[in-house]
């Protein structure tokens, strides 16, 4: 399959990218690793007139920096770099764990975290992880604008990024060393998009749950936080009955569509099952007793 003809722009600076975008708006698309955009172009679901290649800016947009109160990840960092990052394995293990389940080895070698969140497929993995971690996205248009994950993912393939903005950085608040986490992705076959994916974080406090964050993806038009469930968990000593209630609350928020990956009813069921498994795993990793 051959994409529709397009013209090519190779920027030397971020300002040139923004200048080009301001001039051509929706007619121009930025290309990072290309593992969302190229398949769309080959299927002719996307046919931009102009492609801006971000690769020449790799040096300035590809970094993982841990320091102060946050972890900062450049938009051009590839999934595989996160998967194999020793510092992230120590600092925020949910990131390498989630990266490992994206696509396959070859896809992870090329695809970028910035490209994935900017593309914002409702069945992709990073948006769910980012929402659970309260990530903040830096958008550049000559000046910087910061958008929290809760306001970034608007709908299927739709984010807060304006046509003249470029996503440059993802900032994730650091968590205390002792935290429980879990990444659960249910896929129909190896390397598939998720049927449901769940990110859970638990901050323990004196044998209780200090706070909890649960994000669910693929069963709604955008990833969502299990707000009611998180409220129930706050300050609680976890037990299986509570876990069950939180999982039920997560499933009741889902609005899945029936497709090849299952009926809406089935997906609602696996949402409950996977939230339960994720929550139990995170509670155990937080070294809390589950009664």
């Amino acid at each position, binding site marked *: *399959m*051959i*994409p*529709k*003809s*397009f*013209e*090519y*722009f*190779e920027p030397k600076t971020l300002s040139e990218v923004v200048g*080009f975008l301001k*001039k*051509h708006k929706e007619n121009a698309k930025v*290309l990072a690793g*290309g*593992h969302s955009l*190229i*398949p769309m*172009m*080959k*299927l002719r679901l996307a046919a931009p007139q*102009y*492609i801006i*290649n971000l*690769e020449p800016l790799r040096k300035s947009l*590809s970094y993982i920096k841990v320091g102060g109160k946050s972890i900062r990840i450049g938009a051009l960092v*590839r999934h*595989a*770099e996160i998967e*194999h990052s020793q510092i992230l394995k120590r600092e925020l293990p949910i990131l390498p764990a989630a990266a490992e389940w994206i*696509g*396959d*080895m*070859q*896809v992870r*070698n*090329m695809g970028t975290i910035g490209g994935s969140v900017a593309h914002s497929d409702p069945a992709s993995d990073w948006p769910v992880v980012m929402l659970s971690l309260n990530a903040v996205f830096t958008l550049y248009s000559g000046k910087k604008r910061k958008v929290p994950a809760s306001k970034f993912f608007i709908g299927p393939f739709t984010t807060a990024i304006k046509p003249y903005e470029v996503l440059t950085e993802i900032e994730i608040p650091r968590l205390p060393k002792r935290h429980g986490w879990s990444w659960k992705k249910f896929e129909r076959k*190896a*390397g598939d998009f998720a049927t449901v994916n769940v990110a859970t974080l638990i901050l323990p406090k004196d044998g209780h749950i200090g706070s909890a964050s649960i994000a669910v993806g693929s069963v709604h038009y955008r990833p969502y936080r299990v707000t009611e469930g998180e409220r129930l968990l706050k300050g609680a000593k976890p037990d299986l009955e509570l876990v069950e209630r939180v999982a039920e609350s997560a499933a009741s928020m889902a609005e899945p569509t029936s497709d090849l990956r299952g009926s809406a009813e089935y997906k609602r069921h696996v949402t409950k099952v996977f939230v339960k498994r994720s929550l139990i795993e995170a509670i155990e990793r937080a070294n809390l007793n589950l009664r």
Partner: protein
Amino acid sequence: MARRKSVRKTKAGSNALNEIPITVRVNGVEYKNTVQPRLLLIHYLRDVLGLTGSHIGCDTSNCGACTVLMKDVWGGEWRAVKSCTFYAFQANGKEILTIEGLARDGELHPLQKAFWEHHGLQCGYCTPGMIMAALGLLLMNPNPTVEEIRKGISGNLCRCTGYINIIKAIDAAAKEMSAKGVKV
């Protein structure tokens, strides 16, 4: 080699190109070509350079038959990538290794030999991509467990073998490469 044409700029002032000069090193040989922006790397390798060892299977980044190795993707090492989901211009300035570049001085690469000895192929269509993916895996993880091999080649489909002999072949090649200190 295709003749080099002058680069045409499109509409006045747009600074966009509809032909891109690229320099690529494939299996140790440098090529300079002018390509259309929409030319995919797999088509560049097969149709422009005549290297038809890399195959087009699904053409949707699922099957891995088009897998080649590339330098400077991340972390400095050779990395396996799917050349059907890759524009030729993205390879500009990069080094590529295809199945044609594996054998040295008429001697098969340990992975090629192992696929032969362990009957790791039947129709052979997936084999070039399978071997390049396996090499990409072994460069990241020289002593993988069987489980890690299975996961490592999950981006490559084979419709003949049932994978068992492919996994045996990769396992055997990993051991030989480690013992002999073979890198690529």
